[in-house]
């Protein structure tokens, strides 16, 4: 494939050899990679396993809530837990993350209460969290738009001189489908020519709703970075350790002023695109079965069991915690109040606006008319 010609990115071309970077095999065997040494303790791996289990539990609970009519829709992350937890745990507190609507695992890593996510999918708010508090922007639902916000944010950081070893960097999440968007390609160009401290984290889950990857790109997605002049690499997106290692390295490079990296996390959407979708209409069951053998949780479990790092009590405790989390998430969803009607008119502008005030006042009078009727009756 003619991808190694032409002017390459300035210096960094690691990971462009075409291999899938992996540090933990689907069988749970720890392997080393020369470019991505990972110094990680058993306790840290156990903590990652806990993250994976809890995040999957949030997802399972949300799907159930949607099926029971408690959520309007849900975008499942099933199968993508490692990509999200691995990259999410690679971030420092000052780093900024721009998610899509499927980044429940990253949200978890950024310390966001899962109930906040459910607010959005229940339709009582647009998210409602403070992006600055968690350094985690609202879910962006228009495909690919956030890549430009991330690039602009990164340029802002750069302009403020927040670079260096203790600097800040930005990570932006998007899927394989988004790589066909103009926004994403423009963000690659801008990040490249401005050398912006941003990491493009593409979860290639193989399907853009019903459109398979081979109908979206004639080359592997990570190789596109080369054409824009910065490094691209492909990591096993179901390998939490590899995702952690490559993201850490790419974020550090960005912080130190070395510019952007494209990470293609090669993974699989094991569930539907959203709860409105039925993937059995367009893909083969055998494909799903083959990916189940690469499950992101099971390989960590296998590793922990085989190395004796965790015993049955550990797994039972994690399961119990997941059960409690599920209960808490469910309760918070069922007790979420509907927003007050007059909040419709809040935060359209930063200051009072005559047109909005006019409509609010009329609506308030209309609402009050019910009270007067009741009083009069």
């Amino acid at each position, binding site marked *: 494939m003619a991808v190694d010609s032409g002017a390459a990115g300035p210096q960094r071309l690691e990971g462009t050899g075409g291999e899938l970077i992996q540090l933990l095999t689907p069988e749970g065997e720890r392997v080393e990679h020369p470019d991505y040494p990972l110094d990680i303790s058993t306790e840290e791996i156990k903590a990652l396993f806990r993250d994976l289990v809890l995040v999957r539990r949030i997802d399972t609970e949300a799907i159930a809530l949607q099926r029971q009519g408690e959520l309007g829709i849900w975008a499942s992350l099933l199968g993508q837990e490692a990509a999200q937890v691995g990259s999410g745990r690679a971030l420092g507190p000052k780093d900024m993350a721009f998610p899509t609507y499927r980044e429940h695992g990253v949200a978890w890593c950024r310390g966001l209460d899962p109930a906040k996510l459910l607010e959005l999918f229940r339709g009582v708010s647009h998210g409602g969290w403070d992006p600055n508090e968690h350094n985690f922007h609202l879910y962006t639902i228009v495909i690919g738009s956030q890549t430009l916000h991330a690039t602009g944010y990164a340029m802002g950081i750069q302009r403020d001189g927040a670079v260096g070893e203790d600097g800040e960097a930005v990570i932006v999440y998007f899927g394989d489908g988004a790589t066909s968007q103009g926004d994403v390609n423009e963000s690659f160009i801008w990040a490249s020519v401005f050398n912006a401290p941003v990491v493009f984290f593409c979860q290639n889950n193989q399907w853009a709703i019903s459109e398979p990857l081979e109908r979206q790109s004639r080359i592997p997605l990570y190789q596109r970075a080369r054409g824009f002049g910065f490094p691209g690499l492909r990591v096993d997106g179901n390998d939490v350790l590899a995702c952690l290692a490559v993201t850490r390295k790419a974020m550090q490079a960005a912080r130190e002023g070395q510019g952007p990296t494209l990470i293609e996390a090669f993974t699989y959407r094991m569930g539907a695109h959203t709860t409105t979708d039925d993937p059995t209409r367009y893909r083969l069951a055998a494909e799903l079965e083959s990916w189940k053998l690469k499950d992101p949780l099971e390989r960590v479990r296998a590793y922990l069991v085989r190395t004796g790092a965790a015993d049955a009590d550990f797994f039972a405790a994690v399961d119990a915690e997941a059960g409690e989390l599920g209960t808490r998430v469910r309760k918070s969803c069922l007790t979420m109040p509907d927003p007050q009607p007059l909040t419709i008119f809040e935060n359209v502008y930063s200051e009072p606006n*005559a047109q909005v005030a006019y409509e609010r006042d009329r609506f308030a009078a209309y609402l009050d008319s019910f009270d007067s009727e009741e009083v009069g009756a």
Partner: protein
Amino acid sequence: MAELTYRQAIAAALAQEMARDERVVLLGEDVASGGVFKTTTGLRERFGPDRVWNTPISEQAIAGAAMGAAMAGLRPVAEIMFSDFYATCWDQVANEIPKVRYMTGGQLSMPLVLRGANGSGGLGFGSQHGQSVENWAMCVPGIKIASPATPAEAFGLLAAAIRDNDPVIVFEHKALYSRKEQCPDDEHVIPLGRAAVVRPGRDCTLVALSITVGICLAAADELATHGIEAEVIDLRTLVPLDAAAVLASVARTSRLVVVEENPGQLGWGASIAAIAAQEAFYDLTAPVIRISGGNVPLPVAASLEAEVDVSVPRVVAGVRALLGQLRQSTG
């Protein structure tokens, strides 16, 4: 007082605000070399590459990155060279930027300005570079819209836009760029949302914006020779809209003519007319008249463009018909 052209006033306002607040940055195509309309002359030299960012030709990225930079704490001013090109970045302008405050429940502000050349004015820019597109933005709650009619207004409204904590689109009229006027030397800011009565009159209210302000003033001069005293209101901004100024004028004159450069279908003048119909019905002694650009793509040939654009004779004829001096109407 210094005499400035409209384009110099833009540059002066940018310089004033960039000197006042180091978080103000300018980005866009060719802005570092002064811009294709020479509205950013000297800024790169004065404020340096950290403050003035020349960008690739990607309007979507200009708007989207401006939003990201605003989230990072800057106050970006992004130039969209021709306002027709808002169509190439509409997702960012309509779906993203104006929704940030609302969707975050007020936790994030979006203090950014999008600005650039707008309008026809008989310059022959044709269907894709000569449109007046304030209406596009007016369909999207969350965006403020300023459309200055004079150099002093361009200065003051742009300065106010940059200081505003909401996204503001400033539509600069490209046919006014060479217009000259005395502008204040001191810090100059015109609050958004305050229309100006630029000519008083008792017989009829002409509501105008940007280039149609000058057209209406010229028409009012001519109408005076026919014994008609027209009051001219310069709206200055469409959002916030100073409807109170329009209604107060209609209460004085009892007749309303709205003059807009863009195609009439769903033009901003329709909003003014609707407000008058609701709020000033009993003040009116005649139907509300709208005079607008034609409902066709803008022709490029000067002879045809002149027919489509709003003109002084069309305004004069419309007002005289309204007051019963002519039998024909206009539309």
